[in-house]
């Protein structure tokens, strides 16, 4: 099988893994980890006070998601550059 076809199948699997929970667990709230772990810690050690808090926190969920997107954009730009560059290199070698 061609690499491209193989990769399309693998990518489809990833999409299924990522979206299936939204369907089979449609009533869940899909929160993040941090809250739940905090709950267990306060249950085990009720007197524990976090001794340090984040120096800076994104002021809202929107700002947070823009920063997460920024992180993903930086990464995916480099990945796209890499394979675009390699493709161009192959093309110019063939000419």
């Amino acid at each position, binding site marked *: 099988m061609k*690499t491209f076809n*193989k*990769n399309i199948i*693998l*990518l489809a*699997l*990833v999409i299924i*893994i*990522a*979206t*299936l*929970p*939204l369907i*089979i*667990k449609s*009533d*869940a*709230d*899909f*929160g*993040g*980890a*941090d*809250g*739940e*772990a*905090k709950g*267990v*810690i306060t249950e*085990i*050690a009720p007197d*524990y006070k*976090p*001794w*340090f*808090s*984040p*120096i*800076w*926190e*994104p002021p809202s969920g929107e700002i*947070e998601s823009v*920063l*997460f*997107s920024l*992180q*993903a954009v*930086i*990464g*995916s*730009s*480099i*990945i796209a550059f*890499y*394979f675009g560059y*390699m*493709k161009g*290199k*192959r093309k110019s*070698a063939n000419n």
Partner: protein
Amino acid sequence: MRNSKLFILAFVSLTLMAPNFVYAMHIMEGFLPPIWAIIWTIVALPFVIKGFSNVNSIVKNEPDKKLLLALAGAFVFVLSAFKIPSVTGSCSHPTGVGLGAILFGPTAMSAIGVIVLLFQALLLAHGGITTLGANTFSMAIVGPLVSFGVYKLMKKNGVKSTISVFFAVSLGDLITYVVTSLQLTLAYPDPSGGFIASLGKFLSIFALTQIPLAIAEGLLAVIVYNLIVEYKKEGGLAIENI
């Protein structure tokens, strides 16, 4: 063939042994007592220093591989930004360090992992400065070590490269969160049930969620690996040697 079946069996049983987990991510800022924050920082430090010197020597001595190193780092950036929903009804994100560990060895990823963790701690209030040592140990040291080791072991036993990449990356991802659970357990043993009770609770938070994500990360790593192999001539790489 027999060997690859054995690995699949090991993977599945590891998956089933894991109890019912709910949430998963890095340890939050301020949530490790100072003594543990210091211990994990001291443990992580030599790996990170070695990592930066390895990255430095790759950049200096193997300029051909610079771009591939950037690619490995970029993979970590992208994957650790993806908060993906899991079957447990909560979200977590993959680590992305496994692929780079296979390509460049485990310590190079310690350096890259620390950069990503710092980015998230400073700009996203995700993880933290006081917990940086502990999170570095789980995501940027143990994870890559496991990925690297599993890959070498499977290749040695004649397993196909892509299958090896899949299991190496998936297990490295999963183990990161098992280590996170262990770290929290050491800091917070249960007053009545002790170490085991506490470990059960933290594992139940930090790993069933991670299982499907670990599989997804393994698949994504294989996609990128396939592409790297496809363009290995252009990339100037002797991919068979890794």
